[in-house]
């Protein structure tokens, strides 16, 4: 009997993700072409945005921990959490990340860090209270998949253009306002060029925002999938999702706002269900979509041994 895998690849998901990335790449090309065509020198802006994003990327683990009030714990302090992470890392053959606990009642977990060797996985006391061992394991395997997929690096790269476009919009606005742009610019493009640049930047910013959000949703589905493959228990992850998102609706708004900047790497976004703007703008796929995918994996697992 030949060795076989119980987890066929999901080509549809890979194709959608590739297409989104292709669009982001096309946007990059279009922006560079426009900049060359209009002889605009934005070296300063690119360096500024690049520097900011690099700092965000490089210190992502410390920033996220600080922002959430997470504390790195030793195996003696949290033997159960460490035990789960130990075993998952041994199953997946990946280096063990730092393990942290955030003392807050918001049921959530996140993983961040620029590469698997500098990653940190953090669970809140709220999620540990609400979930049983199996469900917590499902959540942690989802977070470890984010680490393995290097989602911090991918999302930083994908959001770079949006950030640059946002900066250009602001700079063009102010220089247009004070009429100073054409004096500094060697090619003397004048006010119409500033207006064009501003318009282009706004469009680029909007497109890039939508595309990175779409990409983020695909990365979440990928992490769900890889997490379920790691534990072999998609249903435990599904049940954890249901518990956590159900509870989310009851969080007071003040806490929500404080937690919002870290949404991208959360297990579920810290926004109440009633506040859903539109599926286009959300960083996470809908609960139904995630549950449907996990149910599919569960069916594949249930096939008897031939």
């Amino acid at each position, binding site marked *: 009997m030949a060795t076989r895998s119980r987890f066929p690849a999901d080509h549809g998901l890979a194709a959608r993700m590739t297409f989104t990335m292709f669009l982001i790449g096309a946007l990059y090309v279009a922006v560079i072409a426009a900049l060359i065509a209009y002889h605009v020198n934005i070296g300063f802006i690119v360096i500024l945005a690049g520097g900011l994003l690099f700092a965000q990327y490089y210190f992502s683990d410390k920033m996220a921990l600080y922002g959430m009030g997470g504390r790195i714990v030793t195996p003696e302090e949290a033997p159960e959490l460490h035990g789960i992470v130990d*075993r998952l890392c041994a199953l997946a053959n990946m280096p*063990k990340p730092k393990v942290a606990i955030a003392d807050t009642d918001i049921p959530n977990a996140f993983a961040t860090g620029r590469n698997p060797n500098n990653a940190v996985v953090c669970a809140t006391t709220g999620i540990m209270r609400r979930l049983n061992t199996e469900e917590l394991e499902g959540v942690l395997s989802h977070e470890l998949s984010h680490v393995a997929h290097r989602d911090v690096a991918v999302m930083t790269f994908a959001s770079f253009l949006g950030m640059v476009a946002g900066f250009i919009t602001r700079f063009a606005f102010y220089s247009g306002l004070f009429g100073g742009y054409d004096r500094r610019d060697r090619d003397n493009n004048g006010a119409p060029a500033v207006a064009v640049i501003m318009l282009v930047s706004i469009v680029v910013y909007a497109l890039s925002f939508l595309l990175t959000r779409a990409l983020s949703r695909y990365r979440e589905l990928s992490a769900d999938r890889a997490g379920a493959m790691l534990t*072999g228990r998609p249903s435990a992850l599904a049940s954890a999702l249901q518990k956590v998102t159900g509870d989310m609706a009851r969080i007071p708004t003040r806490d929500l706002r404080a937690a919002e900047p870290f949404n991208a790497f959360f297990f579920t976004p810290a926004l109440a269900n009633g506040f859903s703007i539109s599926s286009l703008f959300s960083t996470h796929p809908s609960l139904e979509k995630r549950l449907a995918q996990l149910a599919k994996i569960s069916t594949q697992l249930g096939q008897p041994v031939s």
Partner: protein
Amino acid sequence: MGLFDTILGRSKPAKPDLDELFALPSAAITLEAGMRLKPTGTGSVCVKPAEGGGFAGLREQIQQLLDADNDKYTEKTDSFGFSWITREGDGGDLSDLVADLHAVNASLQDAGFGPALLCTLVTFSGDGGAPVGLVYLYKRGTWYPFVPTGQDKRDNARELQVRAVLGSDLKIESDLSRWFPVWGAPGL
């Protein structure tokens, strides 16, 4: 994981490597000569049971396979939800034990549950101290010693001693951060 997998956000489940398991019998001789430690005859396979009928059916097959042998087999689930399939016997024939453990591993792998294998554990004792466990990590193809001495406490000095003795016989895990403890494992 390659660049392509990173870009597509997919990780392939790590495949187990069973070959290094057969290095154990010769290492046991070295261990007895160097530290007066003898195999206790207890060995176990730790696996993460997947949900659904596929794994349950496989479990029955393994049970039949093991029942055919006269040795004593038990199966228990630990607090992390992992399943330990344990074979207990006398310490006389270690290669027999290794062959049995390999049979369990191979049948799991053939059924597509290779990624679910966590570790194999073989225990040694006899020098008057706490029993010593040798843990085999499938995904890395390496061994490491584990000597628990009480609730959440392990004897690192003895573990390093075992590594020094066995260094040339077994592929010992070089990354110490991967010597993760398996508290309450059978035979320890």
